[in-house]
């Protein structure tokens, strides 16, 4: 588990811990412990469990979110909820006298405040997700499956694409699939090293995304091959798009390492428009084959 986000939140962590220990300390100092016979253990287990879960949720919020308003609201809101739960557990084991009876009714106060704060936090979180979604444009369709993201290019992998194509088979709109292959990538990997090769793949992925239209989606297929799903597109239109993309890549000097000598790349591409005979994921092997067959002609001069 990667806990690097936790290091960003020393203040919030202090806040949560102070609140938790403060609550317990206050309850202990104000009341007397019940005898073993007086304690209803079923209640202790039930309410203790809720408290524990609230703490686990707090942990996950702090471990998975960057600094910011949404994180603050969710953390403070949930920690107020936690205080109520804690007081609930404490009054199962503590008995308060007349002077401290106010603790009984105070215990229900933090929860509603916390719920309101969390609701506001969730509203902002919703808006944040919409904003992030627009950043994922051309990289993601209407479903999210983070396990299918390629760690190198940060595009989705082939299995995501296959799932997506499975859905489109039912819709059957006119669409094209293009496969793009970086030329001599093996040679670059060999001369510049694996790390530079990975860096280069990431840059090419970014260039591809930059040159797509709003409705297109790019995926990393295998090795140095990318697949583009071009929605509502005819073969002739796709050709224009791919030529633009190839031009863009040709004119870029990629700098995978720190040096200023850029690497110039060329790509090859193949396009298929879906039809009654060939559509969906079945188009992928045929595109691979088309690219393989041209590579035997080209690669002799390598």
């Amino acid at each position, binding site marked *: 588990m990667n806990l690097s986000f936790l290091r960003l939140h020393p203040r919030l962590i202090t806040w949560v811990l102070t609140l938790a220990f403060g609550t317990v300390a206050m309850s202990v100092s104000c009341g007397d412990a019940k005898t073993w016979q007086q304690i209803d253990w079923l209640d202790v287990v039930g309410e203790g469990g809720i408290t524990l879960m609230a703490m686990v949720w707090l942990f996950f919020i702090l471990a998975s979110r960057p600094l910011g308003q949404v994180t603050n609201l969710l953390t403070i809101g949930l920690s107020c909820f936690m205080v109520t739960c804690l007081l609930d557990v404490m009054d199962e084991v503590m008995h308060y006298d007349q002077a401290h009876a106010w603790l009984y009714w105070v215990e229900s106060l933090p929860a509603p405040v916390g719920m309101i704060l969390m609701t506001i936090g969730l509203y902002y979180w919703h808006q944040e997700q919409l904003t992030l979604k627009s950043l994922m444009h051309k990289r993601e369709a209407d479903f999210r499956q983070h396990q299918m993201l390629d*760690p190198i290019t940060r595009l989705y992998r*082939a299995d995501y694409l296959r799932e997506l194509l499975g859905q489109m088979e039912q819709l059957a709109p006119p669409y094209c699939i293009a496969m793009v292959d970086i030329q001599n990538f*093996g040679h670059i990997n*060999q001369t510049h*090293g*694996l790390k530079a090769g990975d860096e280069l793949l990431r840059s090419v992925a970014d260039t591809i995304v930059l040159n797509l239209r709003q409705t297109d989606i790019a995926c990393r297929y*295998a*090795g140095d091959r990318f697949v583009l799903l071009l929605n509502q597109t005819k073969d002739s239109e796709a050709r224009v798009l791919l030529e633009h993309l190839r031009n863009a890549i040709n004119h870029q000097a990629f700098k995978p390492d720190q040096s200023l000598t850029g690497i110039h790349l060329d790509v090859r591409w193949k396009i298929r428009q879906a039809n009654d005979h060939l559509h969906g994921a079945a188009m992928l*092997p045929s595109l691979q*084959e088309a690219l393989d067959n041209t590579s035997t002609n080209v690669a002799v001069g390598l």
Partner: protein
Amino acid sequence: MWLWASDMANHWLERDSKLPDLPLAQAMLNLAQARGLNLHKWLRGSGLFPEDFGHKSISPEQLLLLIERLYKLLPGQDHSFVLGHQLAQHGFTLGKFALSSCPSQPLVYTQLQQYQGQWHGYFEDAIGCGAMWPVVLEIHLTAILAYAKLNSGQRLKIALACRHDRPRHIQDYEHYLGLQLQFQQPLDQVRFINADAIGFEQLFVSDSAHQQAKSGLLAWLQQQLEQQSDLRLEQLAHQLEISPATLKRKLKQHGSAYSKLQDKVNGRRAIQLLQQGCLTNELLAQQLGFADIANFRRAFKRWLGDTPQMFRAKYSAE
């Protein structure tokens, strides 16, 4: 190419044999470093440290553990293919030894055969790879194809049949190994389609050095059984100069058993004869040294799980 001249009697390697200079280990280190993997985490439990690479000997057992942990810790499913390319690109001791079980590639036992004018390769676990075998096979095959491409400038086309199920990352198979793929087959087997055009024999076959190389224990035993299929466990143990009980124990350590190896060798021989066009059961039985057809049918079923008839019906598409 070095040899263990001191103990030429030991022609085999075991899981815990120490091997200096394992290119696959070096390739994994390169990949782990390039992808920013925490090396200490990766090496945990292997008894190795980052500075050991290139200096300290590594055993096949450690190598397998490193592969397993690499897959566990590094996101992605195509590491085997990247590693195969690395092996070929860096001119590691693969080259002409790619298809033999040389010390640098101690995990795979390869048998090459030429019939009907084509080269065929059969791949077997040489040391007890267990669940890692599909990954090891991927590395091995990718290295062979990448090596051929580097040295001939052309793609070596293969038709691949393997025992394991169709993988989820089929696109990597298609990209690195080609489109002629079959899964859930009785053997791990490759037909080299354009061997002549790329100078296959020169690249992979015409080198005698590999004969001196050591094989993994399972590979070595299979070689003996191929030469003389009725060798008994006691005789094999005698050849290895160990007691039958020790051999049994060693086989168990390597995830195998004498009867398993014998079934494997016989089954492979039967399939090869079938593929070479040996069609009637009588002929097949005769070739494999069976006088009685009923006995042969029973034995065949034990080796391959199907009777000869069922087997033909199932794989006749090949």
